[in-house]
């Protein structure tokens, strides 16, 4: 049984560019959450998707947007990249609308130059 998968593993972009990160949830999970983890800090909640809709959002600007597909996979898009967007982006999935333990993917390391 495959766990949560994310792609790409690493990504280097320059300021002002746009990036799309992808996540496939664990089998049987229908809820996907995205977190940003800056170096030396705990993960910060970006948003959560359930039934193809954004259900809750953290304190992140509109430059951060997402999407969930009918197969429950999800994308995180970040526009107009800033140096401060450099971080590990983690996707987490959980079953039944999100009220259970979240399982995290390996993450995408984004570096903005």
């Amino acid at each position, binding site marked *: 049984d495959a766990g949560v998968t994310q792609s790409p593993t690493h990504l280097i972009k320059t300021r002002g560019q746009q990036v799309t990160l992808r996540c496939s949830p664990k089998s049987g999970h229908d*809820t996907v*959450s995205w*977190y940003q983890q800056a170096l030396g*800090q*705990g*993960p*910060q*909640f970006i948003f*959560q998707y*359930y039934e193809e809709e954004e*259900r*809750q959002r*953290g304190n992140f600007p509109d430059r951060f947007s997402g999407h969930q597909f009918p197969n429950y996979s999800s994308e995180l898009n970040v526009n107009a990249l800033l140096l401060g967007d450099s971080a590990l982006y*983690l996707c*987490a999935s*959980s079953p039944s*609308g*999100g*009220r*259970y*333990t*979240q*399982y*995290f*993917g*390996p*993450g995408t390391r984004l570096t903005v130059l």
Partner: protein
Amino acid sequence: ELKVEQNPLFLSMQEGKNYTIYCNYSTTSDRLYWYRQDPGKSLESLFVLLSNGAVKQEGRLMASLDTKARLSTLHITAAVHDLSATYFCAVDSRGATNKLIFGTGTLLAVQP
């Protein structure tokens, strides 16, 4: 706003010793999680604590929850080098989703 604090931020200990990591949170919550993160890696779920007085143990790690004090502890017994990692507690923010609020993390270094 829910806040989660951990201490210590850094813990250097010798193999064979015992120690405790503390996690305090500011408002009532349904559940508390402990995760482990190895350098450059993702988060591994260790425990989920659902009620006051809950205690869970796995190997040399034992987690407990006191919802009245809004405190959880992660106790390490007879530490071994393989336990070296960063440990995070996270609290469910309640409501329809389980948006997790993470603590700052505790970097544990077990020295031989």
